[in-house]
């Protein structure tokens, strides 16, 4: 089936099978930041933005992306470097496998919530699992990032 979508501002026209999921389509186009961590929509690793809103690309059909703007971390290098710097200063990326999906959700949160409380941050990001860090370093990084943004 013919689809037409934009990944990080670049247009892709392609013929896809009805059961192709978005993550596989995106990776097949060379955007390898998007990772699969499970098959049950529980881990958040595959998070990308569709028209600015975070979605799980492992449980979204490529067809659903037809006509939409998809953003992966490759498309927001500047923000990724900025927030990523705060992560790196905490050592909070550790293995880094969950980082792209997590960072996409953080960016979406920043756009959606103003001055979120610690509880709001945790709730917004609760679907992004991480097995290395225990989440505390990520929280410290987010707080510093938001502090800087509000200055």
């Amino acid at each position, binding site marked *: 089936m013919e689809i037409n979508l934009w990944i990080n501002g670049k247009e892709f026209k392609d013929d896809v099978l009805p059961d192709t999921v978005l993550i596989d389509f995106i990776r097949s186009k060379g955007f*390898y*930041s*998007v*990772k699969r*961590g*499970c*098959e*049950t929509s*529980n*881990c958040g*690793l595959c998070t990308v933005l569709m028209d600015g809103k975070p979605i799980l690309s492992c449980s979204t059909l490529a067809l659903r992306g037809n006509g939409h703007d998809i953003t*992966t*971390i*490759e498309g927001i*290098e500047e923000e*990724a*470097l900025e*927030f*990523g*710097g705060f*992560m*790196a*200063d*905490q*050592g*909070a*990326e*550790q*293995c*880094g*496998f*969950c*980082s*792209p999906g997590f*960072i996409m959700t953080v960016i979406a949160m920043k756009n959606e919530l103003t001055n979120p409380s610690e509880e709001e941050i*945790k*709730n917004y*990001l*609760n*679907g*992004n*699992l*991480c*097995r*290395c*860090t*225990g*989440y*505390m*370093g*990520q*929280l410290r990084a987010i707080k510093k990032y938001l502090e800087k943004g509000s200055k």
Partner: protein
Amino acid sequence: MKVVNKGIRKKDAMSLVTGKPVYTDDITQGSYLVVKLLRSPHAHALIEDIDIEKAKNLQGIECILTYKDVPQVRFTTAGQSYPEPSPYDRLILDKRIRCVGDPVAIVAGIDEKTVNKALDRIKVKYNVLEPILDFTKAKDNKIIVHPEDNFKALDSIGADNKRNLCASECTEYGNVEEDFNKCAHVIERTYHTKANNQTMMETFRTATNIDAYGRLNIISSTQVPFHVRRIVANALQIPKSKVRVIKPRIGGGFGAKQSVVSEIFPSVVTIKTGKPAKLIYSRKESFTNGSPRHESEITVKIGADENGIIKVISMHTLWNAGAYGDHGPTTVGLAGHKAMTIYKSMKSFKFDYEVIYSNTMGAGAYRGYGATQGFFALESAVNELAAELNMDPTVLRMNSMLSGEHVGETMPSYFNEVLNSCNLDKCLIRAKEMIDWDRKYPFIDIGNNKVRSVGCAVAMQGSGISDVDVGAVEIRLNDDGFYTLMIGATDMGTGCDTILAQMAAEALDCDFDNVVVHGVDTDLSPYDTGSYASSTTYITGMAVVKACESLRSKIINEGARLIGCLPNEVDFDGEKIYSLNNEKQISLKDIGNESFLGFNNYLTASASQSSPVSPPPFMAGLVELEIDKLTGKIDIIDYVAVVDCGTVINPNLARVQTEGGIVQGIGMALYEDIIFDENGRMVNDSFLQYKIPARNDVGTIRVEFEPSYEPTGPFGAKSIGEIVINTPSPAIANAVYNATKVNIRKLPITSEKIVMGILDIENK
């Protein structure tokens, strides 16, 4: 120190946080065959027939392999130094099925859809046998998991496959029976820990191809590249010289990837077809056929005098190997030797264990490596002893455990090693202050059936395996004066590439960025046993120190020669060699450049390190819980950890290791539980059913360090990676008791168990 003890960014941090393609699957795109395994639905069976005709003729299928196509020589997939203590009890594909999910056939084809179709078309006729699923009943059972005659244990580990015994041993020191008789207080309790899955975010995966030299190249997400080289070569019966293993960035391991789980299957395909092949485990496969923590049942008996000072400990440990013995004989040892050793007041001890085969998934290495199970049992028993004596459990510990006062003393239960460094007493004192223990112990009633209680545990681990682990590094001076540090240790997200470079920069008085690192490629990297057993900082770190000392002296010699001085007439400040007597000097940059032109003494140094001791790091973990006594609901409010890992090489990374280990430990304590149904199938094989902690579940975690100085470690360092998972289960169980008087002796600690316990007490 200028570079060591600084919270420097990881060298790979910025590429990880910007999503660069650096992991196994990212760097192996292109025409790789998709490899999948047909897995057994039965826990115990014999394959009578496999019909692959309808599958192999499918267009796009490259090969289908069954037990008839692979070598019938047994090996172990445990990533350990040869001769491995784990028995040789596996075949790549076996006619006998020993657990649900055991591989029956390897299928490779052009894409996933085609391979799935082929998997559906393979017809297997099984002779289904009754399984033995309960490891506590498996010893000397009529059902035998490994009846084969070519079962082999390389070492005297007390194995007897005809009795379902993977390993067994009994150690006794002093006169245990006599000492128990002398004790004013004796308690005996049995504890049960469950199997847990590491759930590293990147599942098992391996890509293979044949390179220009006709050698098998294995790109794999592994903690043990050099062991992979040996084990794959053994399993495939090919020379080790024909195998090269490359470790790219890894999405976590936690011990899971200390077993050769995914490597062999695509390797066989590539050998048979000559084509690149790749196997990526699904999350479900990582759950059902990974290498989880060994389930255990541990009976602890403690004797104490009238003042509550611990005099004698015995631990009787049953360990579920599952279907295969990977890491069984070794993990179990830590349950006793690491745990009991922390009670220095102990005059005698007995530790006996049996590791038992059953028809459940084979277990493996998981952070803590058996010590975690041992500490849950022993620390829980110590807390129960304190409760019986009406003593504050922190006070009881202060009177019995290792402390700074014991430095220089021998530890009989720790293979007679001498304690060189210990701040455990300071750790516990500081942790009590941080959590305000004296005010909060045992609990504070906050109304509405809710109480806030505190609980406590202490723990130790080791730093490497004494006289076994080897870490080697090579460091080179390049043109322009930068260094290349070649390491064989495996950074799996932990940051060892970074901390080893920090040590090199410190030893060579240079900027951190002046050291580039490379790891791991078994063709290029110096030999390293791999990243496990909390060995990298301590063992490989010391190799870095030694190699840098050696390179430093070569630089001094060469610099002195270039400026016409004797080596003892110059000094090196990291940037230049300068004369102590006159104005002559030469920069490191110039020495590097000179050595690249018409020079026959390339400036490079290598060193390897092995240690006769495994110095323990120490930790106190105190928790504050909120418990609803009506529903049993537990909320973690605050977790306080104070760690003595010797000199902290990188405080940021050590802190994140500690926080991460505590959260994994909280998962083990509260909900992680591999459950098999009556047919041996794992029931909760996804994140939907096997819950791991999310960020809403863990409260606040606060970490501090009380560094001692370990004289045998690099810059005084010990290990940090594993110890951090050992305190949550016993500390949380203790806090539950302090709130409710209910002792939960079987993990996980669920709300249901708490409420049932409260009802039991009320009904008495």
